[in-house]
């Protein structure tokens, strides 16, 4: 298991480099993305903007599943998975919200547009940032339950958000960022390869964050145990912070 991480890191790095090349056409190997007709080379932002969005949504869905599992089973590992996916999801979501306007500006001349996808992404970002703030500000005994409930509320909200903005847009049309219409099959291929690369990258980041989370919990338990020993509630021999069986 320990060797898997470095091996996966190398594979991911290669994938990312290959995907980057296919997106930017740095080295002209077969399968590189062609230049888009109307938008030009700026359109290549698409190959980073869209996979980041898909990865963020995927992570948020895993967070939802982990939250529900936690509420049903109260398994602390499920809670750890939830917080990990939320945090990494927010990182990817931030990238979507940053690359979106950077793309919109040269193409449409505006920084922002209240189109369905970008606005829904913004609301998702807000919901999950509030999730992370809740986790930080609440007492660690209740945090997992409160956070899991918030995740469920967020999940119920998103379809309503999407629907309401969609209807609003049919009444007040505005430019759509992210492009509509059909895609050249070579572009599809580059898009998917970038998504695969970012999924692997996200997996590795989540894995690292998960290890960090477990370490954090270990330290918290050690602190708690130490204060109990100090108060005389537990004998020093019974508290061995570094010698516990894995949960």
């Amino acid at each position, binding site marked *: 298991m320990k060797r898997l991480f470095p091996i996966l890191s190398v594979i991911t790095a290669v994938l990312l480099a290959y995907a980057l090349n296919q997106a930017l056409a740095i080295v002209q190997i077969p399968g590189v993305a062609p230049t888009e007709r109307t938008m030009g080379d700026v359109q290549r*932002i698409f190959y980073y903007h869209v996979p980041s969005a898909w990865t963020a949504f995927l992570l948020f869905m895993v967070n939802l599943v982990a939250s529900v599992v936690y509420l049903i089973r109260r398994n602390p590992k499920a809670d750890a998975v939830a917080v990990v996916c939320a945090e990494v999801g927010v990182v990817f979501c931030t990238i979507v919200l940053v690359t979106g306007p950077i793309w919109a500006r040269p193409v449409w001349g505006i920084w922002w547009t209240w189109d369905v996808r970008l606005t829904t992404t913004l609301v998702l970002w807000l919901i999950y940032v509030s999730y992370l703030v809740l986790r930080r500000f609440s007492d660690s005994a209740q945090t997992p339950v409160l956070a899991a409930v918030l995740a469920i509320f967020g999940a119920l909200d998103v379809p309503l958000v999407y629907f309401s903005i969609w209807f609003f847009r049919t009444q007040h049309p505005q430019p759509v960022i992210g492009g509509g219409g059909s895609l050249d099959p070579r572009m599809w291929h580059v898009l998917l390869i970038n998504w695969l690369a970012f999924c692997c*990258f996200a997996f590795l980041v989540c894995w*690292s964050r998960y290890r960090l989370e477990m370490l954090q919990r270990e330290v918290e338990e050690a602190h708690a145990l130490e204060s109990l020993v100090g108060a005389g509630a537990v004998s020093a021999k019974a508290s061995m912070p570094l010698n516990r069986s894995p949960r």
Partner: protein
Amino acid sequence: MNSIKYLYAAYAATWIIHVFYLTTLVRRYSRLRQQLKDLGKK
């Protein structure tokens, strides 16, 4: 072409954000390791 700037800005921004996040992870990790070591010593 002027808009190429935006293309590079977007790709750079993506990786800057990722690197920033990974740096915070590394820093938190080393801080926790240090805390654990201190607790073990006591």
